[in-house]
């Protein structure tokens, strides 16, 4: 029981309660359904992608291009719609472009063996570039009413489509991570790709599938943001990867791979959403909020590091003490 209490997830829960309490003191309407739904809606696309990013970081990889794929799929959707193509075709194409982008990333990472940092950094630049080739400087929107309603209004009661997708996503990712063989292989590869390879895991195929999943999920998020905002620019979703990566790392998933739980990621997601909402309540601009998120990102690795070194020192002293006692006694 004490183990559970001292875990990272418990710390996150504590922080979440503190943040919510602070926010409630700032605004009496904070816990109202409207505000809570709004709180999610503003970042719904990010938290969906964070679910996919969790899988990738557990696998000891990283995908910096997610925001650019979001932008690319949103831009492609707007472009095709603007060109007069049937909307369902545009939707399929947008999802497909995400799969293609993910497969492209996956090819260089899994089969050529390039580091995911550089490949997805190139992707971040490149896919954003393709998106801006499509839309240039314009802002294109004018989507069908049902599409925008899906993104902006509630589907089941007050709960919007995006939020429902998130809940479904949480369940799926939980099942994959905790109850499927695929999830186990993700952890093993994250701990040591070589061990996984020698144990018979097809590491290449797993990594390729992961990046394709990331691409498709990012494309889906791009479609959602197009629906929510009603209009798309070449710069849609720029910089989202910061929030997404912070959500995953703050949730206790190690950047080095091999460990982390979905519970932690969900908690950290809630923390970040509440922090952003709370900062908005006191009129702190989006830019400054980003700075706070950046600080959280660094702290999310700095503090566990520090705690670990304190713990090793404590246990070393403890061991030394015990040894001294044993000798003296």
């Amino acid at each position, binding site marked *: 029981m004490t183990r559970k209490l001292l875990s990272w997830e418990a710390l996150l829960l504590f922080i979440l309660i503190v943040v919510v309490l602070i926010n409630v003191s700032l605004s009496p309407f904070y816990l109202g359904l409207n505000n809570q739904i709004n709180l999610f809606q503003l970042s719904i696309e990010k938290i969906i992608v964070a679910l996919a990013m969790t899988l990738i970081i557990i696998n000891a990889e990283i995908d910096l291009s997610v925001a650019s794929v979001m932008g690319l799929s949103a831009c492609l959707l707007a472009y095709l719609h603007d060109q007069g193509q049937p909307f369902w075709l545009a939707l399929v194409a947008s999802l497909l472009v995400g799969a293609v982008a993910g497969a492209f990333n996956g090819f260089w990472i899994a089969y050529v063996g*390039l580091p995911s940092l*550089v490949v997805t950094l190139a992707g971040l*630049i490149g896919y954003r*570039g393709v998106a801006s080739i499509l839309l240039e400087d314009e802002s294109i929107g004018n989507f069908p009413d049902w599409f925008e309603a899906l993104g902006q209004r509630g589907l089941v009661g007050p709960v919007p489509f995006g939020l429902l997708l998130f809940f479904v996503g949480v369940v799926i990712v939980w099942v994959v991570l905790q109850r499927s063989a695929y999830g186990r292989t993700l952890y093993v590869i994250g701990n040591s790709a070589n061990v996984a390879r020698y144990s018979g895991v097809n590491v290449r195929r797993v990594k390729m599938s992961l990046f394709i999943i990331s691409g498709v999920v990012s494309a889906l998020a791009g479609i959602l943001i197009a629906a929510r905002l009603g209009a798309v620019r*070449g710069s849609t979703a720029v910089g989202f990867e*910061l929030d997404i990566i912070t959500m995953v790392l703050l949730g206790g998933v190690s950047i080095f791979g091999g460990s982390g739980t979905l519970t932690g990621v969900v908690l950290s997601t809630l923390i970040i959403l509440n922090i952003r909402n709370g900062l908005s309540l006191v009129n702190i*601009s989006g830019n400054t*909020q980003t700075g*706070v998120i950046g*600080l959280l990102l660094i702290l999310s690795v700095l503090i566990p590091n520090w705690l670990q070194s304190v713990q090793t020192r404590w246990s070393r002293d403890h061991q030394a003490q015990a040894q001294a006692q044993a000798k003296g006694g």
Partner: protein
Amino acid sequence: MNTVRRAIRPEQIRELILVLIIFGAILFFGSQIENYYQPRTFTRIASSLAILAVVAVGQTMVVLMRNIDLSVGSIVGFTAYFVGRAVVANNEMSPAVVVLLAIVMGAGLGLVNGLVIAYGRVPAIITTLGTLAIYRSILVQFSDAQTIITSALPEWLVNLPQVDAFVVGEVEVKLIVLVAIVIVLIFQLVVAYLPWGRRLYAIGSNPDAAAMTGLPVRRMTISAYTLCGALSGLAGFLFLARFGTITVVAAQGLELQVVAAVVVGGVNTFGGSGTMLGALLGAVLIATLEQSLLRWRVVSEFWRDALLGLLILLAVATDSVVLARLRLLWARGEIEQL
């Protein structure tokens, strides 16, 4: 064949190919764009090259150690803006003080990066992703969204990009370009001949072994990042001089171009190999592409980023596949000799 093998290393072949690619690009654009071969074109390329090259030198030092610095764009914007504000408030500041202010400011920001990475043991990608956001938001917060306008700046600063170092026939070599090239040369010598520079390569090629042999890895990380920050600060000063009007989004995205220049220039992201000259060549190619695309009617300027991403990929893939094979060939040659 053996004398060739002994005289040239595979990395130098790569740099040679890069030079050929640059010439190829210039020839290509020259055939597509009218009036391309004017001194004006090269002056334009050189101006954006100066800023890119200075930051690339700092980034190279960091990448050689198997790290990365994504916050350079924010540092350049930060220093350009705040130095600009200082100069606007006090037009009488001497140029030396202004430059020094920019460098010290940048060095401070870089020092923070170095401390968090070295002592906090936070991976470089995470730290610099975070400081990218933090520095930019500090800039936005403390600027009150005011822009710096050229007319408020002193004459010498605004005219700096036009100042010629010397003129060779019709080609004017600008002072800022000369400064950038001198910096590249100085740091190339540092990295090739000074012990501090050689240690960068050692730490990058095998950090654990370097630590075990007693190299001061943490101190070197801090000094590399501080230098990178200082050079970014200098680039911020150049940025201020070049553009005059500085908004809060100044130099946003510069880090991507710098990483592209460094990677294309042959500096390996796994650390341990690459040269400043290579980074300079990479910066030349990137600057050439950027300026030429602006003037090429066939294809909009928006193709630049897509091309940049593709270039990085090709460069890293080539390094990983082709260079590895070449090195094997070279190594086999040496073994056969024994």
